[in-house]
């Protein structure tokens, strides 16, 4: 089956990102396809490479980045939600006149159309986070 995944919560405060990650990993292990993972609302905060969780805890951003690299996943951070919350790639940082960017490897910033497209193209769109 072809899944689309939506992550609506940031890391650590809630389990949503962990659950989405574990779901994605399990689905891939079973031979399913992940069309796209879309990060919305506070979920965009999963896509900053500047998180530094304690060393004895999981690093969710790194887990997502590694999963994306291994399985060529498309991790998309919503641009409108990201701009509100300070998640920028190099292009956006330049365009907005900011002095740095923080997007994590394997993530890309794009529009809400990517969410709708995931809904259209996937057999199931699975949403994580309230």
């Amino acid at each position, binding site marked *: 089956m072809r899944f689309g995944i*939506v992550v609506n919560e940031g890391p650590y405060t809630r389990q949503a990102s962990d659950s989405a990650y574990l779901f994605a990993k399990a689905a891939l292990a079973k031979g399913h396809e992940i069309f796209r993972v879309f990060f*919305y*609302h506070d979920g965009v905060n999963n896509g900053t490479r500047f998180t530094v969780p304690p060393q004895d805890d999981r690093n969710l951003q790194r887990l997502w980045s590694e999963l994306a690299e291994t399985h060529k996943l498309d991790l998309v951070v919503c641009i*409108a*939600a990201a701009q*509100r919350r300070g998640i920028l790639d190099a292009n956006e940082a330049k365009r907005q006149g900011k002095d740095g960017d923080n997007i994590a490897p394997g993530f890309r910033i794009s*529009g*809400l*159309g990517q*969410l*709708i*497209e995931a*809904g*259209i193209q996937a057999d199931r*769109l699975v*949403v994580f986070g309230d």
Partner: protein
Amino acid sequence: MSEQANRKKFLYVNRRAPYGTIYALESLEVVLIGAAFEQDVSLAFIDDGVYQLVAGQDTAGVGMKNFSKTYRALGDYEVRKLYVERESLAERGLTVEDLMPITYEDEDDDYAEKPSIHLTDRSEMARLIAEQDVILSF
């Protein structure tokens, strides 16, 4: 594949009051962008989500952007099916008279202005949800 075959039933479920959290605003942003994809779109308003449609919203005191006018423009985006749960209104002491008049122009009926808001019982709402392909809940 024809466009028709790619057309899915999208339901946006709005459950929260308009200004306590960002969900109502960011839901609306998805609806507006999604309109360009020509899917079969419905919006549901349940629980505190019914407050999103209340007329006469004034956000001056909380310093937030009042985006309530956007709901009235939804008809221009071909978003014409707004299902408001009857019980959720009643539980909050509201009636349909407290809501903004939201309409669309029906091009198949000489552009007659028709109401977009449909009062829907809880049991009908369950049926509506069951028949969707994609549900985004905010």
